[in-house]
């Protein structure tokens, strides 16, 4: 037997199909990222020339008090912002998903739509509406709280250093709680009914079924929700900018990485924008997210397996 091997033609179709996507990805994602990393190693002279300065931007950012104070403040605030989401948004999302998947619930689709609705709204609108609602001057919240006898507890939450960040976090939670809910709800629906029946016949209560059967099976989804929350939180900007402006007041109490980057890069009021320092902040944001995602991949995703149901 002899086999004749036809000389394979160059697979132009692969180039044809992958080309456009690759091109877009390279130009709007890879190139800007690499260029940002490059820029962070330079210094911009008064006349606009760039000179290579190695890691000096980073050492300024991390150790020079003028830069490091706002930087660590923003990092710390961002972490709090993330922790509130993890402790409030995702557990509530999980709870709502479990409630939604209860077979006894009526009008399920209405609840689902209503809870998911804010997610589809613009952050600018949400921020503005909540700012109005919570305003001590013309907001309806104070009157509402007096009406139900809680008037004494009302405060200018958005205006106080102690509560502004927390309040903004909760506004963000309110808006985005629909996302974890939807993802976890979909995962719960994927669990076969017979599995739940088996657990019931085995004698478990609703809580035991949830804890021993459902929760392990939706763990991969919860992990994914967490990492999505992390990335979104450390990239957050619009809400703070809308409600508090670029200065993230009061007294930078709500300053997070996104707003810090904005001021550094574009400049604001007395602060001059700096291309290279902005690139350094952006690079650090990138690294923080990179480290977070890497930790997730190595510590969490390796241990949690997806199970064919």
């Amino acid at each position, binding site marked *: 037997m002899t086999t004749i091997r036809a000389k394979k033609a160059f697979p132009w179709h692969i180039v044809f199909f992958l080309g456009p996507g690759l091109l877009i990805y390279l130009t709007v994602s890879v190139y800007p990222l690499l260029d940002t990393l490059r820029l962070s190693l330079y210094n911009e002279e008064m006349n606009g020339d760039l000179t290579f300065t190695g890691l000096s931007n980073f050492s300024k950012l991390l150790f020079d008090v003028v830069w490091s104070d706002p930087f660590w403040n923003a990092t710390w605030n961002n972490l709090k912002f993330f922790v509130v989401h993890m402790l409030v948004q995702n557990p509530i999302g999980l709870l709502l998903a479990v409630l939604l998947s209860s077979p006894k619930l009526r009008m399920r689709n209405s609840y689902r739509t209503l809870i998911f609705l804010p997610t589809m709204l613009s952050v600018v609108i949400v921020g503005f509406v909540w700012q109005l609602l919570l305003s001590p001057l013309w907001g309806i919240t104070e009157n509402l709280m007096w009406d139900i006898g809680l008037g004494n507890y009302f405060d200018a939450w958005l205006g106080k250093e102690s509560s502004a960040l927390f309040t903004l976090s909760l506004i963000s939670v309110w808006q985005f709680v629909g996302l974890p809910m939807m993802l976890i709800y979909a995962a719960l629906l994927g669990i076969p009914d017979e*599995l739940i*029946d*088996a657990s*019931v016949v*085995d*004698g*478990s209560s609703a809580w035991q079924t949830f804890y021993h059967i459902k929760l392990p099976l939706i763990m991969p989804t919860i992990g994914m929700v967490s990492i999505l929350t992390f990335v979104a939180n450390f990239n957050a900007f619009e809400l703070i900018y809308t409600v508090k402006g670029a200065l993230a007041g009061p007294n930078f109490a709500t300053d997070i990485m996104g707003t810090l980057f904005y001021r550094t890069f574009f400049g604001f009021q007395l602060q001059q924008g700096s291309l290279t320092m902005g690139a350094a902040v952006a690079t650090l944001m990138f690294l923080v997210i990179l480290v977070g995602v890497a930790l997730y991949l190595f510590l969490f995703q390796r241990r949690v397996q997806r*199970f064919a149901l």
Partner: protein
Amino acid sequence: MADVKLNNIKKSYGNVNILHGIDLDIKHGEFVVLVGASGCGKSTLLRLIAGLDEITEGELQIGSELVNDLPPAKRGVAMVFQSYALYPHMNVLKNMSYGLKIAGKDKAFIRKKVQQAAKTLHIDHLLERLPRELSGGQRQRVAIGRAIVRDPKVFLFDEPLSNLDAALRVQTRVEIGKLHQELGATIIYVTHDQTEAMTLGDKIVVMNQGRVEQCGTPLELYQHPITEFVAGFIGSPKMNFIAAKVQSIEADHLVLRLSNGAITKAFVDVTSCNLDDDVTLGIRPENLSEDSDLGERISASVSLVEQLGEASYLYLTLSDATEMVMRTSGESTTTIGETIDISFNAESAHVFNADGLALKRHRAGNTKSPAELARLKAIA
């Protein structure tokens, strides 16, 4: 002792009635098979007994205790599901011990129980594996093992073999039968496969549209179906039905004129019959013969032949276009297009009246189970 008593059990979802009053009496240690076409309510009934759905009306007793409002585990039932429903994130050991763990049993006890059950089912070498690493048959055993370890009073099987391939199905069927002998537990088993029903059941319950059509031993159902539905459901291929009129009534038999004009006898109870009544003659494919010497004769043309090896099925058409099937020897050389004379014994005929109810057969064959036969022979 764990007798199971169903007293006028009804189930409805909103306005839709699924079960219209089921009465059943299941003795301790009995193997009861619920059969019926899909949608007849057999799985619903099983879920009611398991406690997975609420009983709308009626009483369910297990071991003389009213269990309507008890959760499944308190009823002392264990269930094996069609898809096995093994917990995918737990290994075999954890799957089997889950129920006991929930019940708060101590570890040594659980370990012992699981080892014991695993040994019975020959899965003791698989305890560390995850369900996805098991074959279909092994998963099936684990599912049964999970039921066994809890020492339930009643085992419930919901079409447990339908996900297995044919060879494994036969093997597992035999094993379930043996398991029943060993455990001596009460088993309620849902299937739509009548071979499973005939081979496994001490008692078969044929259900139709939310009602019990007939309940009895396998051979009782085979020899004395009380309705046309049961007659058609039990036996494979299906019983042949031929429209007929009562031509004359004798002391112990009817003389019928079939729709194709043939005249046949049938040894059935004649007391409720009148001349010229419309009836249906039922005759099983295996009671028909190509030899024309069994008494009652019909002429038919062959439209299709299925050769199975040990037997052949001839698909026949009578002169009035009535379709029939007969089972004949695998050696038969009859082929498509031929017109043949087939015959049957008048004693093997079934007759159903216009309401689909059977007239009692006088000369039916054996209806006793192997165990009963053995006992009778021992006495004699």
